[in-house]
């Protein structure tokens, strides 16, 4: 990974995000950044949108890319570009939550399983009433922040260790969050299929 970042022209796929960043750093040509945004922009925006709201997602998305523009020279290639980008974006998002005092630890940490049970009853009621209207997005919204975050990152293709790096959490915690998130969604899925 690190080698392909430093020698993009000789090693690795020329269109990989790391190579594009390296080309952009070296030449400053806009087209490389365009390709980079085209490759990772939608994924990042969706992640932010699901973790906040439209306005904040747009704002944080812009902020994150601006940080990429400012710090692209310092990218060491120790992780993939996408992991780096998502880590930047997540930090910006949490900073914004803290600034707006929207950040609640309860939402993040282990009490999510207790919360799940409470939510489960409410949500089961909603399901019975509006089963046909239940969509993936809504189910996702019902997940606590940390579980939703872990799940989206995994569905986005990040490995457990990459998710752990992005969220600054141990792998076991990530696994646990993913397990809870899946259990929660699976309940709806089962109910939906009945």
């Amino acid at each position, binding site marked *: 990974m690190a080698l392909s970042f430093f020698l993009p022209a000789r090693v690795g796929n020329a269109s990989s995000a790391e190579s594009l960043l390296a080309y952009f750093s070296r030449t*400053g040509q*806009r087209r490389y*950044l*365009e390709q980079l*945004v085209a490759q990772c*922009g*939608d*994924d*990042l*925006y*969706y992640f932010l*949108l699901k973790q906040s709201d439209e306005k904040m997602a*747009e704002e944080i*998305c*812009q902020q994150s*890319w*601006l940080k990429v*523009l*400012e710090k692209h*020279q310092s990218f060491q290639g120790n992780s993939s570009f996408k992991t780096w980008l998502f880590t930047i974006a997540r930090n910006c998002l949490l900073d914004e939550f803290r600034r707006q005092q929207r950040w609640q630890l309860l939402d993040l940490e282990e009490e999510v399983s207790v919360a799940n049970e409470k939510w489960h009853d409410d949500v089961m009621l909603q399901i019975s009433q509006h089963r046909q209207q239940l*969509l*993936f*997005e809504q189910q*996702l919204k019902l997940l606590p922040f940390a579980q939703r975050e872990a799940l*989206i990152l995994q*569905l986005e293709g990040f490995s457990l260790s990459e998710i752990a790096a992005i969220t600054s959490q141990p792998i076991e915690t990530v696994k646990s969050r993913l397990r809870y998130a*899946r259990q929660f*969604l*699976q309940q709806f*899925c089962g109910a939906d299929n009945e």
Partner: protein
Amino acid sequence: MSEHKHEQTRFEQQLQRAYQQSKANYPMPKKIRQQILQQADSSKRFSYQNWFRNAQLVLGSIFLTVLGYLMLQPVSISSYQIVVTYTDNATKIESHSLTVRSLPAVVAQFSVDENQQRYQQMLLAQHRINQFHAELGVLHRGQQHWQITMCNHQVVSIDEALLQQLKIYDTQLAQWQLEQSIEVYRGPQGQILAIKPAAQEQQCPLS
């Protein structure tokens, strides 16, 4: 068990499909994309950070080049060597010579030895020659070396290079007599600092 596994796989597929469909419904707005690219254009125009970094790089490179050049620049190191030998009849002969070596400056810093110190001391002492006592001797011109026979019969041989460095008063060596009586000034480490024609009345006492 396999049914559970099958169900699990199906769930994972559903989840992935739902995720991809959902993501496709929410692409990054075009205006955000444009704003990002505009920011890139404006930051490319003039970035103080980049400029500062590049300037640091250039200055650092120049500094290192100059430093490297100075450190590797050869410098001449002069050494004053005294070798003492004895003849069969126990006459002491001191051979005084000057050698010049060329070393990189960085190496020269760490290779100071006694002979170099003796040379440096000679240069310093030549400025205050009147603080030293003179001894009498006779200067002979040999084929390759000059020789001084001191009044105590000790022989001091001096090479041409050293002779050029000695402080010689008023007259030119070529005008000196074949056996010229001289005053010899010696430094603290026995090095010869200067020679001077002796006055008529100054002669070695007859032994």
